[in-house]
């Protein structure tokens, strides 16, 4: 049962392809609490990205449920506390889940500032000037205020990813989902992005991070999930996962990456 601080409850989540011939997710159950920095690790093809992308329904799960803020977003309708049947509007829930992608996915035809104000203005109906002021403050925080008028192609990979993070933050999400945010970066740019994420974690932002950066998982995460073959094989604190691994797959994985 969900605890008081539980934000997302995932139950028996499955994502199959070709009538179950391929099981990208094969029954994942996990509770994500407010303030969690949950790091998901595992070999490639283990389903960790599919798991993350299912959380805001970029992947349509084959079965299982995802309850976010008390609403099962995998269903088409739900009963609100007054017992009224309400249609699930996934767009509303996605506003509260910021997402950062491996390939940044900034909008190339818009300036950095427009990238950041588009959703607050068009989705939340925020005042344009106020949205810009807030965007500039966020850019300032990641050291990119002077690039507000630039187009994405003029930025380095690390700068693009920092913009992508604050673009998601501009919507004031309740949880941030990171899908291998440093995997497409040149090695010297990984640090600047991880620093921003670390800062976010210290502020208490709820985060789910799929990554290959074991140092980050160890240092910043408060929970580490190990996935393989679409299954959640082991869960624990960074100390438990990295120093006292139980599952042979996890031991094998760690011996390869550490």
């Amino acid at each position, binding site marked *: 049962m969900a605890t008081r601080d539980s934000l997302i409850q995932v139950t028996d989540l*499955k994502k*199959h*392809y*070709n*009538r*179950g011939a391929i099981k990208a997710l094969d029954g994942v159950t996990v509770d994500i609490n407010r303030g969690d920095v949950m790091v998901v690790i595992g070999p490639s093809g283990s389903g960790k990205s599919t798991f993350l992308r299912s959380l*805001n329904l*970029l992947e*349509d*799960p*084959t*079965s299982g449920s995802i309850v976010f803020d008390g609403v099962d977003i995998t269903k*088409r309708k739900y009963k609100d506390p007054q017992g009224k049947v309400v249609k699930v509007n996934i*767009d*509303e829930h*996605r*506003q509260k*889940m*910021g*997402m950062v*992608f491996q*390939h940044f*996915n*900034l*909008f*190339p*035809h*818009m300036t950095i500032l427009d990238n950041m104000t*588009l*959703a607050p203005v*068009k*989705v*939340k109906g925020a005042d344009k000037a106020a949205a810009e002021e807030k965007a500039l403050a966020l850019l300032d925080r990641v050291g990119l205020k002077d690039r507000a008028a630039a*187009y*994405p*192609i*003029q930025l380095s990979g690390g700068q693009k990813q920092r913009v*992508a993070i604050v*673009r*998601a933050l501009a*919507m004031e999400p309740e949880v941030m989902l990171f899908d291998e945010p440093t995997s497409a970066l040149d090695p010297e740019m990984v640090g600047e992005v991880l620093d921003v994420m670390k800062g976010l974690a210290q502020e208490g932002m709820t985060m789910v991070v799929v990554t290959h950066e074991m140092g980050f998982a160890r240092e910043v995460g408060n929970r580490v999930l190990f996935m393989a073959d679409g299954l959640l094989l082991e869960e624990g604190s960074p100390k438990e996962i990295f120093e006292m691994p139980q599952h042979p797959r996890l031991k094998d994985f760690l011996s390869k990456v550490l």
Partner: protein
Amino acid sequence: MFVQMKNFSVVATYAQMFQEGLVVTILLSLFTVLIGFVLALILAVMRMSSFQPFLWLAHVFPGVFGFFERDGSGMKRDSGFVYHLGRFNPLSFLATAYVEILRSTPILVQIFIIYYGVFTVIKLPNFNMFGFIRFSRFFPGVVALGMNSGAYLCEIIRAGIQSIDGGQSEAARSLGLRQTQNLRYIIFPQALKNILPAIANEFVVIIKESAITWTIGVQDIMSAVNAVKGATSIIMEPLLVATALYFCLCFPTSKIIAYFERRMSRGDKR
């Protein structure tokens, strides 16, 4: 010499026919572009719509038709006949059929079917536009050209939209944008930039292809050439005049669109 200067002075006496022909060609092209573009948008929207009646039934009456979405064990279907039947989109099917048929038959055949077939059943009023354009010939020509270019433009639009990386939509939707907002603010602006060269090409093709309407008696530039030929047996000189006129129409058209293309590619420059 095939081309003789004195023949041009003969052609010059037909100047008014060429002038009127030029106006007809321009009007033909403009209306064709207009009809073609509107038709193409409708077709493209139909092709990319998510109108799936069987899946809709499954959502409204899950008890009866739920099997279209989920199999016996409650898992969402992802392959097989019932899955594809559930995703069958009649609008998309119709639009695809239209596009494929129009692209796979000669435009000459299409024009004849429209003119001798459709518009002998539908009687058109017999009047002249601007005093010299016979509506009963002009209108079928525009309809046939518009229907044809609509099919090609639809393919161009669809290809342009599909050329945008899927990550763009994912980013937009993850920020909470609705699908319509995603299309309007993210996909269309980028797609338009990508397809402008192809659209420019199609506009130029329309201007040139409009020449075929003289076969149903539309008095465009080509029909002026034919009139000179019929009256004087001079052929090369009027053809050269027609060549020059068509070039003067097509070349600036592609240049103007190239200008807009450059303006829209600001985000590409470092």
